[in-house]
C-alpha cells in the first residue's frame, strides 16, 4: 500500500496539477471580484458566493485526493457500471427535476442541488474509453461503430430532453477523440461544412447575388460554390484525378463567363444560383460516370456529399426557423450580426464585451471593475465569469487564462500520447476535448464570437457541480497517468 501511494505522488504530473490549481485560484479570485459587495465584505462569509465557492473548492480537493488514492483498475472495471448509473440518473432527473428556468436538469437533494449532466460527461468518457480500448475493437466494424456512437448520443439525447442544449452540445467534442482514434477526417470536414452552410444559409439566404435579379439567393450560391470546391479537393485528395478537375474548372469558369456576358451585354436576368446549379449538376454527372466506369465507390461518395450539401443548404433555413426555439434563433442572429437587439438578447453579450473591452492592457484592478461590481453583466460569476477577468485584469489577464487553458490542453494531449493503455489514452483525449469545447464556447460567447450557449468555464465558473465534475474528469486522468507504467490493459 505504502509503496504504491508513494509511487503515485512521485508520478503525478505536476504541470497539470499546477495548472489546475492556478486556474481554480484565479477562478476563485474572479468569483470574489464578481460577487463582492462593498457593504458586506467578510472574507469567510459562507452565505456569499465566494465563501461558498471556497467550500466547493475544499470538497473538490477532497474528491481529487480520494480519486488519486483509488486503484487505477477501478475506473476501467467500473466504467460500464458508472455509465449505466448515470444514464439512469439522467432519466430520473428528467422525470423528477423541478422546472428551473425551463430546464429540467437539477436534482434537488435537500439543501444541495446537483446537475447530473455535468458528471455524466466523465461517465461517458470512461465508457467510451473502455469500449474503444477493449481488445478487438475496430471502427470499421459497423456494429461496434454504431455502439460507439450510441455511447455518446444517448446521454446527449436525454440532456437535450432536459432542455440543457448547451451541456448536450459538449458531447460533440468527443468526436475529436474519435478522430484521433481513426475515425475518418471527413466527419470533421462534414461537421465544419455543416456549420459553414448553416451560417451562410441563415445570414445570406435572403440576399440576392445581384440587386437587379430578384429571387436569387447569395447564401445558396455560396454554398454551392463551396460544395463544388470541396468536392474537387476530395477528388484530388483521394483519386488524384486531375483531368476531372481540369474539365470541371474550365467548364465552370466558362459558364460564369457566358453568364456575366449575357447579363452585362444583353441585360438578360439570369439567376447566379442557376449558373452554380448547372456546374453542380455537371460535376455530379461526371462523378457518377466515373464511379460506374472506374468502379470506385469513392466517386459515388463525393457525389453524395455534393447532393447532401445542396440539400443541407436548402433545409438549414427551414430547420433554423422551425426547430430552434425563438430565443435560440435570436442568439444566433445576434452572433451573426443580423440583429442588434441591445435591449434583449444582445444585452448580455454587449455588456460582457463592454466589461472585457474596458479592461484595456492591465485592467481596472482587483475589485475595481465597475461593470461587474454594478452587476451589469448577467450570470457574471457563472457563465460570464470571464468578464471579470477581462475587466479587472485586462488583456494580460485574459491572455494568461487563454494561454493557461491552451497549455493545459496541450499537456493533456502529450500525457495521453505517452499512455501505454488505449483506455488511458482515449480517456485523456476525451478530457482534453471536453475542456477544449467548454473553453472555446464559453470564451467565444463572452467575446461575441459564438452564440450564447449556457455552459460554464472549467475551474472558473461558480458552482459545485461544474467544479466537481471537471475535477473528477481531470483527476481520474491524473490517476491513470500516475501509474501508466504499472499495467498494460
Amino acid at each position, binding site marked *: 500500500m505504502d509503496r504504491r501511494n508513494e509511487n503515485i505522488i512521485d508520478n503525478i504530473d505536476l504541470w497539470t496539477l499546477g495548472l489546475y490549481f492556478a486556474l481554480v485560484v484565479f477562478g476563485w479570485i474572479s468569483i470574489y471580484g464578481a460577487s463582492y459587495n462593498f457593504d458586506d465584505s467578510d472574507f469567510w462569509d459562507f452565505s456569499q458566493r465566494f465563501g461558498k465557492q471556497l467550500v466547493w473548492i475544499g470538497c473538490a480537493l477532497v474528491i481529487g485526493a480520494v480519486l488519486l488514492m483509488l486503484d487505477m483498475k477501478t475506473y476501467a472495471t467500473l466504467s460500464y457500471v458508472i455509465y449505466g448509473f448515470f444514464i439512469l440518473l439522467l432519466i430520473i432527473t428528467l422525470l423528477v427535476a423541478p422546472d428551473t428556468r425551463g430546464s429540467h436538469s437539477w436534482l434537488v437533494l435537500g439543501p444541495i442541488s446537483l446537475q447530473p449532466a455535468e458528471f455524466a460527461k466523465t461517465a461517458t468518457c470512461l465508457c467510451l474509453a473502455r469500449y474503444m480500448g477493449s481488445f478487438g475493437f475496430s471502427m470499421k466494424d459497423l456494429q461496434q461503430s454504431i455502439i460507439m456512437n450510441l455511447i455518446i448520443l444517448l446521454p446527449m439525447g436525454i440532456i437535450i430532453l432536459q432542455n440543457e442544449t448547451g451541456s448536450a452540445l459538449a458531447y460533440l467534442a468527443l468526436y475529436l477523440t474519435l478522430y484521433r482514434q481513426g475515425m475518418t477526417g471527413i466527419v470533421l470536414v462534414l461537421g465544419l461544412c455543416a456549420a459553414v452552410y448553416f451560417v451562410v444559409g441563415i445570414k445570406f439566404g435572403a440576399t440576392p447575388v445581384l440587386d437587379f435579379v430578384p429571387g436569387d439567393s447569395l447564401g445558396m450560391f455560396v454554398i454551392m460554390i463551396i460544395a463544388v470546391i470541396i468536392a474537387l479537393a476530395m477528388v484530388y485528395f483521394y483519386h488524384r484525378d486531375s483531368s476531372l478537375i481540369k474539365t470541371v474548372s474550365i467548364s465552370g469558369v466558362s459558364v460564369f463567363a457566358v453568364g456575366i456576358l449575357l447579363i452585362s451585354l444583353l441585360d438578360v436576368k439570369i439567376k447566379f444560383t442557376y449558373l452554380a446549379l448547372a456546374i453542380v449538376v455537371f460535376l455530379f454527372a461526371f462523378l457518377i460516370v466515373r464511379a460506374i466506369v472506374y468502379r470506385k465507390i469513392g466517386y459515388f461518395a463525393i457525389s453524395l456529399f455534393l447532393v447532401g450539401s445542396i440539400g443541407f443548404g436548402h433545409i438549414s433555413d427551414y430547420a433554423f426557423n422551425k426547430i430552434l426555439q425563438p430565443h435560440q434563433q435570436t442568439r444566433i442572429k445576434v452572433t451573426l450580426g443580423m440583429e442588434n437587439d441591445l435591449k434583449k438578447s444582445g444585452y448580455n453579450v454587449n455588456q460582457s464585451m463592454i466589461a*472585457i473591452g474596458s479592461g484595456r492592457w492591465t485592467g481596472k484592478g482587483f475589485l475595481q471593475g465597475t461593470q461587474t461590481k454594478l452587476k451589469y453583466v448577467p450570470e457574471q460569476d457563472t457563465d460570464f465569469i470571464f468578464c471579470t477577468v477581462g475587466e479587472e485584469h485586462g488583456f494580460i489577464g485574459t491572455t494568461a487564462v487563454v494561454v493557461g487553458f*491552451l497549455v493545459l490542453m496541450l499537456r493533456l494531449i502529450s500525457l495521453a*500520447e505517452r499512455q*501505454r493503455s488505449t483506455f488511458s489514452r482515449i480517456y485523456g483525449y476525451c478530457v482534453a476535448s471536453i475542456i477544449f469545447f467548454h473553453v472555446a464556447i464559453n470564451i467565444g460567447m463572452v467575446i461575441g464570437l459564438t452564440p450564447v450557449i449556457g455552459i460554464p468555464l472549467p475551474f472558473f465558473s461558480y458552482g459545485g457541480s461544474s467544479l466537481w465534475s471537471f475535477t473528477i474528469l481531470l483527476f481520474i486522468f491524473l490517476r491513470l497517468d500516475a501509474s501508466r507504467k504499472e499495467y498494460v490493459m
Partner: protein
Amino acid sequence: MINDSNDNRRYTIILIMVTVCLIYIIRLFSIQIVDKSYLEQSQNNAYLRKVIYPSRGLITDRNGRLIVFNKPAYDIMIVPREARGFDTLSFANTLGITKDDFIKRMTFLRNRSGYSQYVPQVFMSQLSDEEYGPICEKLYKFNGIYVQKRTLRDYNYHNAALALGSIGEVSKKQIEADDFYTQGDFAGQNGIEQTYEKELRGEKGEEILLRDSRGRIKGKFEDGTYDKQPVPGHDIELSLDIELQKYGEELMNGKIGSIAAIEPATGEILALVSSPTYDPSMLVGRKRSANFAALSKDPLKPLFDRPMMAQYPPGSTFKTAQALVLQQEGIITPNSAFGCQHGFHAGALSVGCHGHESPLNLKHSIQHSCNAYYCCGFRNMIDHRKYKTVSEAIDIWKNHIVSLGFGYKLGADVPNEKRGYIPNSGVYNKVYGENRWKGLTIISLSIGQGEVLATPLQIANLGATIANRGYFYTPHLVKKIKGGEIDSSFIQRHNSTIDRKYYDVVVDGMELVMISGTGFYSRIDSIDVCGKTGTAENPHGKDHSIFMAFAPKDDPKIAISVVVENSGFGATWAAPIATLMIEKYLKGYIPKRRKPIEQRLLEANLIKE
C-alpha cells in the same frame, strides 16, 4: 504498446486548439486594446448622470402678489426586468387602479419605442402630494418600483389662464431644436410660460451617481465632488394687476369677448381678459390631457386668446383715428362741420346715423359718433386733388393708421398675436382696377367697417396712444425679470405720424362722450374718463359691442378696450364694463351708485345655450 497509423492526427488536433486560442487572443486584443469605445461605454454605464430639475421661476403680479408657484409631483417608475415576484393585484390596489389598467399600461409601455426592460419606465406620472402620500410607504414592498420627483405648477389665482400659458411635455420638434430638452421634459406652452421659457426654466443640475444595470442607485460618485447644482429659473414680475384681471373675468362671465387694459405711460398690460376662460390649474398634471381635449372641443373656444387673436372691425372707436388722420392731412380742422340728415347719402349709397343736432363740428362728431361726418371727411381726403391718385391717398392714410399701431403685430410678449388688417391701394386696385375707384367705393372704412380689422389689444393701444397724445410703447406683460432684463423693444417709444396738437380736440370729444354723449350712462363721478363707443357690424349675428377709453384725462393711468361679442351697441355692455374696470383700478372699489350697474353686469348671461 500502442502502434497505429493515426499518430500524426494529434498534430491536427493540436493545430485546431492552437488556432482557436490564437483567434480568441486576437479578438481580445482588438476589443481590449484597439477599440476604445468599450471603455467609454463602461463609463457611461457605471455613472448615471442624473438630471436634477431646477425649480421654475415664480410669477407675481405688478403688486408682488404671487400668482404661479411650484408644487412637488411624483412619477411612479417601473423597471420591468426587476418588477417580478410581487402581487400585481396588490400593486394595482395600492395605486388605486384595476389589474386590467395595470396590464393595459404595461402593454402600452412595451409597445412604445425606446422601451427597455432594464431601464425605468414611467408607469404613472405626476402624482400630487395628496395622491402620493398614502402610497409612498407601501411602494417599498414592490421590487422594481421607484419614484422620481418632479415639480408642477400651482396657482394662487384661478385667472389669466391664457396670458400665463401652461407647462406641457416637450414635442419631438422642441427636443431637436434645443439641446436643453430631453424626452419627457416639460416646457412652457403658450402665454408667458412659453415666451419667457428660457428665463423661467433655469439651468439643470447634474448628479453623478453610481448605479447598476437596473438603474438602482448605489451611491454618489466621489461623494458628489463633480455634481452640479441646478440654478433655479428667474422669477418674473408681471405688469398684470391680478385683482383687476380677476374682476375683469368676473365682469365678462357669461359673455364672449375680451378686455385689454394698458398703462399708457409704459405700455404695460394691466389686464388681458379672454372670455369664456378656464382655470389654469385645469392644465396641470395628470388631468391635463383630458382637460385640454375637452377645452379644445368646447364650441365657445375658451383656448382662443381673444384679446390677442380675435380680429374685429373696430367700428366707431376707429373714428378717433380718422379724426387724427384727417386733421394731419389738412382735410378738416376742429371747426370743420358736416351736416347729417340721419346719415350720409350720396346717390344710391346711404350710411345711416342716429338722431342728433346738425351740423356738428369735430369735437361733437366724436361725442355723438356721427357717421356722416366721417364719411364726408374720408371721402374728401381720398378724392382730394392734392394727391395724384386715389392710390396715393389711401396709402398715405394707411401709413398714418399703421403708425397708430394697426395692421401689424404690436410685438407683445404673448405668442400667437394677430396683426389685424389695414388695406392698401394694392387691394382695391386688384378688386376694382388700377385707380378705378374713389372715396365712395370704400366709404365704410371711414367708420371702422368694411375691410379694416383690429385686435382688442390694438384698440386698447389706440386708447393709450391718444392718452399719450401721440405715442405708445409696445404693450407687454412682463414688468421685471429678476436677475435679467426685459426686451429693449418694450422701452422704445413709438411715435405716431400725427402731430401732438391734433390730439387735444379728439381727447375733448372723447371726454364729451362720457359727459353727455354715447357713454353717459357709464360715467364715473370723480374720474375724468375719455371714451369712445363702437359697434362692429357682424354679418353672422348681433353686432359686437366695443368700447375704448382712457382715464384720467390728464396724466392717464389706464387705457382700455372692451369687446362683448353679439351684444349690440357699445354703450350697452362694453362701456359700463370698461368704466367699472377703470374705477376698480384707479379707486380700488366701486361706489354705491354704481353697484346696481355692476350687479347687472356680473349677472348678465349673454351666451345663448
